[in-house]
């Protein structure tokens, strides 16, 4: 994919690091729903890679097939053609070591379980002994700032806190790859900013690889090392943009930097044009 015009492309870096195997490799994935005249192609020959410990966000116009892409990556949907592999192994069914945070926290958390049991829900004997699992749960709850909330129920918490529980559940699962499907889309701006910073902190603390799907351009740039811009359906990869913002990021000062403003504007133009970008200089 072309990486023109944007400051700080990692052309050199990715080309030079062929020795590093990508954690996630998406190769020419196409998915078509239905057949005949009613067929709808959601993804078209989509290819990209995510390297270990990277934070990659995917942004695209609404209806761009972002959800289809995530369902494909998480093995919930088998693509019509093309392949997805994680750490070199082809994804058939739901891959091991992958956790997901859904947009709809009120649905993804189970209302009949307490916070603690929700976090414990995906853990099995493979995650360790009962004591180890308990420690894992406590640590994850602490990491998202919810220690002491063990015996509450999801519906007793605010939306932001519910999404924190969902994040804790994903962390306790100790994923290699964390998929986040527009996780903050239903939250208010204040809570959203708090949770964005939380995710950045956790990303470093747990050295986890994150693939973050969003339709919010600011969010995609603010969080990520790399932004993948999708076209409208059938979704193709329009551009792969390296985000060279300094760490640690800050909601105010980072967003004031020229680089941020520039990248954001570029992404916004790409999305507005639906992927057919008039060549920017």
């Amino acid at each position, binding site marked *: 994919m072309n990486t023109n015009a944007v400051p700080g492309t990692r052309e050199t870096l990715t080309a030079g690091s062929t020795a590093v195997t990508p954690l996630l490799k998406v190769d020419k994935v196409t998915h078509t729903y239905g057949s005949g005249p009613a067929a709808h192609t959601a993804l078209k020959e989509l290819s990209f890679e995510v390297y270990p410990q990277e934070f990659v966000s995917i942004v695209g116009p609404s209806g761009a097939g972002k959800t289809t892409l995530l*369902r494909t990556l*998480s*093995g*919930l949907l088998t693509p019509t053609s093309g392949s997805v592999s994680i750490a070199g192994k082809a994804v058939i069914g*739901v891959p*091991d070591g*992958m*956790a*997901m945070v*859904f947009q*709809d926290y009120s*649905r*993804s958390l*189970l*209302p*009949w379980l307490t916070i603690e049991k929700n976090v414990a*829900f*995906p853990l099995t004997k493979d995650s360790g002994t009962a004591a180890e699992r308990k420690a894992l749960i406590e640590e994850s709850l602490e990491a*998202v*700032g*919810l220690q002491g*909330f063990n*015996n*509450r*129920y*999801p*519906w*007793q*918490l*605010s939306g*932001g*806190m519910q999404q*924190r529980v969902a994040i804790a559940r994903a962390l306790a*699962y100790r994923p290699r790859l964390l*998929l986040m499907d527009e996780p903050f889309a239903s939250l208010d701006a204040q809570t959203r900013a*708090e949770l964005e910073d*939380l995710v950045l902190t956790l990303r470093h603390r747990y050295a986890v690889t994150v693939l973050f799907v969003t339709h919010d351009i600011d969010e995609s740039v603010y969080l990520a090392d790399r932004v993948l811009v999708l076209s409208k359906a059938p979704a193709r990869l329009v551009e792969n943009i390296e985000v060279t913002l300094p760490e640690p990021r800050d909601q105010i000062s980072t967003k004031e930097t020229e680089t941020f403003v520039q990248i954001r504007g570029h992404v916004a133009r790409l999305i507005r044009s639906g992927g057919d970008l008039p060549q920017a200089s």
Partner: protein
Amino acid sequence: MSTTVKEVHVKAKTGQISGTAGRVGSRLAYSSGLLVVLLLLWQLATALNPSPFFPTPLKIGTHAWTMFFSTAGGGLATEAMTVHTFQTLGRVLLGFVLGSVTGVLVGTAIGLYRILRDVADPVVEFLRSIPATATLPLFIVLLGGEDSMRVAFIAYGISWFVLINTANGVGSIHPTQLAMGKAFRLSKRRQLTGIILPAALPKIFAGLRLALTGALMFAIVSEFMLSTNGIGFQLIQSQARFQILDMWSWMLLLAVLGLLLNTMLEITENRLLAWHRLARS
């Protein structure tokens, strides 16, 4: 992360439990108060217009008391009462359990697999349209006049309520809830017991409530035909002998039995589904 604490609506856990019991308790008090008023009215009406068919409730009460509870040799209740009550109760419970288990199993399968639902839909739609009691002669033809026939008839009659409600509950589980289970690689069994069945439980209980009332009704109807014991048999017997007070006494007993069974199920439901009621309020 201290900001999170202020977002919580604190609901003490003990408050929820006593609230459940208190709700049932206060409603019982209200209902029994009302019952007294109704009984007084009934007493007044029957005392002013004496009729051989409609004795005063006072007469019915004293008659029922001697019939059911005045034992010569001690013991809580007369044999006449315990034998027939337990015969009926046994049929009701056995039929209820068998029919409910079948209904939940088939309903879950139909709710989960579209192809099964499509194949079964017209058959289910037709069979459940047959007024259940119309099938009693068929059950007699197929299974004779024994107790197995009665239990099978009750189970058949009530299974539709449970089946339809279960299929509806399972079929309307939110896709995110199902996707969550898959994304965390839960075993099929855990997806079923951990997500699908609990999520469908409110609907299943709606079916069970109908089923329990139905089970008592079908048991009585089945005892009207070719039976030698049970409350239904006693009703028919006292009718044939023109023992009006006996008949009223058995009807009274039946009403108490129905109320007791219903209250027991309601308490179970309140326990199991506290999360559902509270989550919605």
